[in-house]
């Protein structure tokens, strides 16, 4: 009995110790400066934002942007900082930030107020909007999808938006008709095999997949929601947020941003997506 109490007391102490010592104190900026390492969260299944190419190299628009931001922050600190890439999916991209596993997440993240409760965002670094992808020649407008099934990814804003669109157009079964999958490949497979009439998410993602089989798919209708992408950052950490924001603005000013943009979304690419907006600039 005595031993048992001892044991329980010991394990209590252990848990408390673990809980207190491992909580990181101080700002992310100082930590990155001290360690010389920045941990960046990136998706691995999103073409052309962040994916593994045919040589199994991890490339994409988000990858280049994140590396460039890290490089510039390093220049400001006056030293080379190493980048550690961490794989994220839609399940892990927010909890990794809140728990401090990563310092920034460049992962197709729309800036949403609900999300802002637990994490912070940088200024918008990419402007996207939601559309519906469908087999070519079958549908012409959003109304055609009423009563049909639409694929989306679980845990994304586009899922909620698609339900709202169908509801607005008078679909009584909107909740049931939007089918949520765990990842983008599953959504595309479902569309490919006519399990769903359309797949709705951010249009650049749709373009990335449609380019797999050129001429078979098309985007239907206009944007039905704006999806401003921000880099996800730890909550209440303004030094770090400033550093990231300034890096993005500097990239825009000296033209590096457009170089990266054209590399992935320019007219010569499979994912041509004209740039119509402007990064928010602070004089």
């Amino acid at each position, binding site marked *: 009995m005595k031993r048992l109490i001892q044991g329980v007391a010991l394990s209590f102490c252990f848990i408390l110790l673990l*809980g207190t010592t491992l909580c990181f104190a101080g700002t992310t900026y100082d930590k990155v400066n001290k360690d010389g390492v920045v941990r960046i969260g990136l998706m691995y299944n999103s*073409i052309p934002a962040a994916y593994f190419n045919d040589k199994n190299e991890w490339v994409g628009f988000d990858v280049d942007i994140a590396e460039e931001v890290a490089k510039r922050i390093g220049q400001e600190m006056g030293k080379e900082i190493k*980048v550690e890439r961490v794989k994220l999916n839609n399940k892990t991209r927010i*909890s990794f930030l809140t728990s401090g596993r990563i310092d920034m997440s460049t992962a197709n993240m729309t800036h949403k107020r609900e999300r802002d409760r637990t994490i912070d965002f940088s200024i918008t670094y990419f402007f996207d909007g939601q559309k519906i992808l469908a087999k070519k020649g079958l549908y012409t407008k959003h109304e055609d999808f009423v009563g049909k099934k639409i694929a989306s990814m679980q845990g994304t804003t586009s899922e909620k938006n698609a339900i709202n669109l169908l509801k607005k157009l008078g679909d009584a079964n909107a909740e049931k008709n939007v089918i949520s999958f765990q990842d983008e490949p599953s959504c595309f497979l479902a569309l490919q095999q006519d*399990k769903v009439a359309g797949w709705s998410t951010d249009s650049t993602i749709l373009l990335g997949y449609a380019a797999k089989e050129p001429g078979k798919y098309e985007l239907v209708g206009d944007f039905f929601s704006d999806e401003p992408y921000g880099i996800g950052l730890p909550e209440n950490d303004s030094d770090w947020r400033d550093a990231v924001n300034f890096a993005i603005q500097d990239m825009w000013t000296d033209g590096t941003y457009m170089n990266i943009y054209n590399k992935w979304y320019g007219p010569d690419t499979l994912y041509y997506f004209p740039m119509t907006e402007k990064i928010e600039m602070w004089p």
Partner: protein
Amino acid sequence: MRSSKRSAQQFGIIAGISLILYVIFKHADFGYQFYWGVLYEVNPTYKEIFGYWLLRGLQLTIEISLISTAIALVLGTIFGIARLSAFKPTYYLATGYVEFFRNTPLLVQLFFWYFAFPLALPSTIRIFLNEHNFEFWAATIGLGVYTGSFVAEIVRAGIQAIPHGHVEAALSSGLSRTKMLRFVILPQAFRVIIPPLGSEFLNNMKNSSLAMTIGVAELCWQSQQIESFTFRGFEATSAASLIYLGLSLSISAVMNTINHHLKIGQEKQLTVLDRIFGFFFKPFYFAGKLVFIIVRLFKQTFRLGEYAPVHEEALYASIWSRLAAVIWKWLVYAAKIIFVCLFIGVVFLIAYAVYSFNWAVIWKNLPALLFWTFPHGGAGEIFFGLGGLSLSIIIAGIALFASFFIGLVFGLGRLSRNPMISTPSILYIEIIRGNPLIMVIFWVYFFSPIVTGMQIDVFWSATIAFTIFSGAYLAEIVRAGVSAIPNGQIEAATASGLNYFQVMRKVVLPQALKIMIPAIVGQFISLFKDTSLAYIIGVFELTTIAQTLNNRLMIFPFEIYTTIAVLYFICCYSMSMVARQLENKYSPS
């Protein structure tokens, strides 16, 4: 009297543990504010009560479980009997079915049924399927087929457990083969197999959580939906776990009472609970009786199954019966030939499909499936970027090694006579076994940052989850192994002056381990298959790599999924061969 005192003690300990947990969560600061209101309050952003979502999910989970259980029972009975057939093609077909589906992960099978199988159908059927809730049916039938392969093995073992003398006696007393099966073998076999069948149905219910991966909004899916809407992963996952636990406990209660009611040969000892449940079984009992009476009336009216008196039309009868026998014989032949043709046809179709695969794609990506980018991994990647099949094996290996010790401690703990030790062990074992693995993965994933203040790598998060999960199952294996050692040996060892640990280490465990080895290998196989679930939190094991490759190639889903199914199968099947050999080597008879 003794048992009631013991259960009162146990109850007290459980209450104590819950109190301690409550105090910890109430007062210890994890840097995380618990907010259980998310489950029952109206969420201001979405204007919904998320608790309802869980209930909707529960309804779907129950539907999937019931229907797939029925499918599994039918398939399992047919193929279980077919595995004992003397007619070789039937045997091959049944064996192929059982071995293939038992030795590949359910997750991969569900992907196959949902994404690959419809491609083999004409487009009109495909459109029909897609308009009729195909996600639900793919999950339910996939689950039924998977569980069916396990039920088939249970049925086969049950039939083989019937002494051969019964078969001979039944045949010599003039029963036909079908009648013998119907009246002598199956009624006995089903009684033997009901306990393992019950745990299989329990597994089936827990496995239904995998339906979330193909977009079926069952319980687990709903809990994750709440997480993605509110970032309250811990609360949502805990609530779903409690529901699963309740479901598991009620299923095992029902199976226990059925077991008690069906017992023959000894006097029935029914508890109060059994009698209450028995009341619900009464309608089925009467329905069975009614069917029996109707059948008998029907037979009496039409005089079916009665032989014509021999002395009146002996010659006539003998000609006709001889003719009937000849016709019957040819019919059986014809049926066999048709069966063989169909069998060959199916084999040919599969072979042709495999032949027309784009093999270049498979060969090119095989290294990635086996090792991923090893040894050229980037900074911060575990094991120099190792992934794919080898990572799956490593996860399973580490988890089995670590969980063996957990299993040893808790398995022995459960056998302890001191309730202070046995009750926590029972709690751990039953809570984990009452939950789907996917829930344990989410637990570790959402709980570890709350306790430790930091997020461990998903690889370790998944490995810890597998360890905790498999520890509970190994504890039961240890318990069974230790219980199998005759009590006399323990008494003799204690009498000769050894203390508890010496008795265990020197006498009991060496013998028990030998008995446990086949079961441990079996556990390793299922652990290895379960590593596919690490896909859900993005660990780069085989299934995730397959998804990633598929994502890039997009037009070869058949090739990719078949390849990983074959990879899983090769590993699991060779391990189960080893298990079988060990079983033969160490079996007492």
